[in-house]
């Protein structure tokens, strides 16, 4: 606690640098709530003795004219420090640092005072907001006077990349990077890559066959010289930092020697154990205990599901081993852990389908002929459990009437507030497929119809013309309790038709629930493992929702696809490619620039007490026995500053966030020093 007293707390500045203060109007974003002209005059007059030699306000400081204004002043007024009172540093710090650099001022001598996000946008009282803005500016002025010129750090970037998740987003990202000539590890926890897209039959609005467009990509990824596929594997641990991650991957035992396996499929044929396929077939069909999830699986090698395999359960069977023509079955295979060195990581871990059982009044899981959207996708798939026949749960009866319910689990306060983005189009696709393959009458129950992308609304028009009936209203319940003779033995959808303005009961044979997309059940754990953040829903948070949608706050870790929020296939593919482009930029530069915020030990002050030694989770702090003092490795240091705060001797100091800077900023924020012209921050 004495560190600050020792280290510069109360140190007088030998020379008060010449400071320029720039107040941005941000159109009316700031000027609407804060008196910017008043701020400028105040800064110029009242902060003169704090070193401010020029203060200006301007409509948009971030515009090229605004930047030129600063550059001109740096030269004309010989400015040594710059304070820009504008938006959050997370938005425009770089802009103004660059402007300073171009005018010959070290970029780290520029400080942003956030008077938009932290003042004008959150307060309404003009006087109070202007007062607070004064405090924020005074804090920045006091701080910037103590900023030191710094040089950005550069770390080399390992040319290999880890892509987590082998759905279409991950495949796209991996292919882009691999095609550019750099190595990629593609990790997938299921036995095959392909993701949800591999389960679909048709894709909206073009009605392309999903397998026809996806499988070539899967094959390319599987055979690419630069891509190492690690299926049936999971990332267990991530060490290191941007440019140099060390990732531990757990390879689950396949019990198949992939060097010998030819993928002939005889083992699957001979395996006597049938298991309901809950993943790929959504529980509508069986697979064997040794299986590939689907015929086009990449890689072609099956896995033995040890939880269901008769040999693993009862100690005998080994039918697959007996019939395998190449002797590839290996029951002794053990779990394996491998460490990968990579420079960048892309997380494309996808989504989970909302479990429609949770909307109990819709009867999924209770009423046989209520289907989830993924079940229906499988049913319409010509390689699926019914060979593409649309039939009731009995497997043979064709429905005469089908009801498709939108927004199941989305746009619903009880479950998820968000719109799942794809359900409207998916439901329209379902309606089209039912019309195409049966004579059935189709009802779509929707709240709002959302068809915003290319050729989407045209598809809606087409489905309307095909004669699908649309009922606008949220379905209250799906029941088998008949009130009228025509309802007997059927499912009844109770709904308020908000366009007709009345309650309706519509009897149908089959109900399809367009379920929400939800974050993966373990997305919070995955985020923690990779050191990124999740929103309260569980989607990964991007660095900026509009301008940097595939980066995260953690350098070197990128996100793509539905892991960041519900999206359709085109958007998912675009994000996969975008993330790859960001990674390629880093790789081709060979190094990336980092903020030079690092801790270092002032040797003459270090007493060798070792209090800091256990505080660093990155192992940057080591004790040098011969010299009886502590050293900090700047390459490993991440700049959190925990050790600086802990050192009782004030022997550790941190660039960018020194005690001097922070204490001065506190004084400035509290406007204490202002009235006494020559005062300096004093000891507590």
């Amino acid at each position, binding site marked *: *606690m004495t560190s600050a007293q020792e280290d510069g707390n109360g140190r007088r500045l030998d020379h008060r640098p010449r400071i320029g203060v720039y107040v941005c109007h941000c159109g009316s974003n700031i000027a609407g709530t804060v008196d910017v002209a008043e701020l400028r005059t105040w800064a110029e007059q009242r902060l003169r003795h704090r070193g401010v030699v020029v203060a200006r306000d301007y409509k948009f400081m971030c515009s090229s004219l605004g930047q030129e204004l600063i550059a001109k002043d740096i030269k004309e007024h010989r400015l040594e420090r710059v304070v820009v009172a504008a938006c959050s540093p997370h938005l425009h710090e770089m802009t103004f640092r660059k402007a300073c650099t171009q005018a010959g001022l070290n970029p780290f001598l520029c400080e942003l005072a956030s008077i938009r996000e932290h003042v004008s946008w959150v307060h309404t*009282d003009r006087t109070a907001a202007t007062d607070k803005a004064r405090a924020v500016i005074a804090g920045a002025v006091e701080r910037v006077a103590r900023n030191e010129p710094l040089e950005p750090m550069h770390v080399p970037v390992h040319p290999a990349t880890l892509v987590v998740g082998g759905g279409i987003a991950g495949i796209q990202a991996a292919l882009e990077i691999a095609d550019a000539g750099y190595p990629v590890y593609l990790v997938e926890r299921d036995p095959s890559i392909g993701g949800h897209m591999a389960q679909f039959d048709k894709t909206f609005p073009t009605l392309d066959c999903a397998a026809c467009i996806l499988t070539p990509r899967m094959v390319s990824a599987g055979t690419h010289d630069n891509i190492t596929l690690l299926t049936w594997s999971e990332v267990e641990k991530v060490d290191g930092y941007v440019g140099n991650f060390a990732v531990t991957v757990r390879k689950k035992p396949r019990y198949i020697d992939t060097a010998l396996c030819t993928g002939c499929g005889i083992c699957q044929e001979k395996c006597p154990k049938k298991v309901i396929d809950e993943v790929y077939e959504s529980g509508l069909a069986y697979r064997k205990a040794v299986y590939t999830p689907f015929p086009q699986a990449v890689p072609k090698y099956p896995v033995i599901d040890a939880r269901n395999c008769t040999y693993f359960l009862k100690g005998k069977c080994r039918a697959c081993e007996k019939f395998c023509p190449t002797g590839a079955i290996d029951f002794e295979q053990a779990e394996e852990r491998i460490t990968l060195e990579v420079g960048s990581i892309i997380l494309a871990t996808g989504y989970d389908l909302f479990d429609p059982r949770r909307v109990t009044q819709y009867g999924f899981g209770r009423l046989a002929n209520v289907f989830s959207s993924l079940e229906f996708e499988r049913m319409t798939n010509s390689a699926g459990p019914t060979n593409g026949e649309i039939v009731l749960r009995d497997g043979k009866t064709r429905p005469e009437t089908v009801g498709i319910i939108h927004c199941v689990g989305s746009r619903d306060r009880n479950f998820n507030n968000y719109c799942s983005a794809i359900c409207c189009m998916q439901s329209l696709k379902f309606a089209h497929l039912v019309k195409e393959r049966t004579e059935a009458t189709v009802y779509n129950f929707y709240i709002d119809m959302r068809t915003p992308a290319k050729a989407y609304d045209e598809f809606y028009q087409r489905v309307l013309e095909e004669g699908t009936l649309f009922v606008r209203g949220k379905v209250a319940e799906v029941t088998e309790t008949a009130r009228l003779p025509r309802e007997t033995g059927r499912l009844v959808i109770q709904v308020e038709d908000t366009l007709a303005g009345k309650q309706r009961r519509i009897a149908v044979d089959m109900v399809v629930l367009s379920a929400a997309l939800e974050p993966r059940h373990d997305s919070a754990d995955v985020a923690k493992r990779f050191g990124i953040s999740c929103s309260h829903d569980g989607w990964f948070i991007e660095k900026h929702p509009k301008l940097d949608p595939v980066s995260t706050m953690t350098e070197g870790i990128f996100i793509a696809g539905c892991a960041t929020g519900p999206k359709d296939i085109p958007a998912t593919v675009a994000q996969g490619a975008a993330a790859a482009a960001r990674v390629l930029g880093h790789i081709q530069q060979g190094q990336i620039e980092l903020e030079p915020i690092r801790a270092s030990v002032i040797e003459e002050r270090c007493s060798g007490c070792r209090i800091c030694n256990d505080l660093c989770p990155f192992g940057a702090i080591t004790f040098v026995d011969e010299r009886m003092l502590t050293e900090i490795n700047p390459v490993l240091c991440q700049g959190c500053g925990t050790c600086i705060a802990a050192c009782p001797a004030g022997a550790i100091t941190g660039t960018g966030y020194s005690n001097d800077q922070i204490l001065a900023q506190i004084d400035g924020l509290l406007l204490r020093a202002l009235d006494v012209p020559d005062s300096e921050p004093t000891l507590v």
Partner: protein
Amino acid sequence: MTEQNERFEPVIVGFTCNWCSYRAADLAGTARVKYPPNVRLIRLMCSGRLDPTFVLRAFAQGADGVLVTGCHPGECHYLEQNYKTLRRFRLLQRTLNQIGLEPERLRLVWASAAEGVRLAREIATMVEDVRALGPLDWTGPGGTGSSAEREPSRDTAEVGA
């Protein structure tokens, strides 16, 4: 203007973490969530950077309350440094209580980058709690004069005049 009619406007210094709570404050801004203007934020790279001296300094220089914020336990950008913040915070709290400072004046709030609304709510609650306590009557070595002098609206009013 009489003291009775004047509502006490406390000044609170808020320490934020670059990765979570500062971003939460940014998010509150972007979403135009309103909260009282009594809190002034300082950005640190991590709540682990918080030297307890900073808190003492803020109180000594006129703050009526200090808000410490950081990532939720287990979500620290630097893996585990917020646990160290928590340890220091508890010690500091005890020390300050021993010298007679009301516990409500020092508060720790975890706020992730997504919790702009929550941070705004916590700030609003704290402002009301500290307002109820009145100005900090701190007469330590750094404190000069009466508490009224540290009363912020006057402070800024003087400066602004």
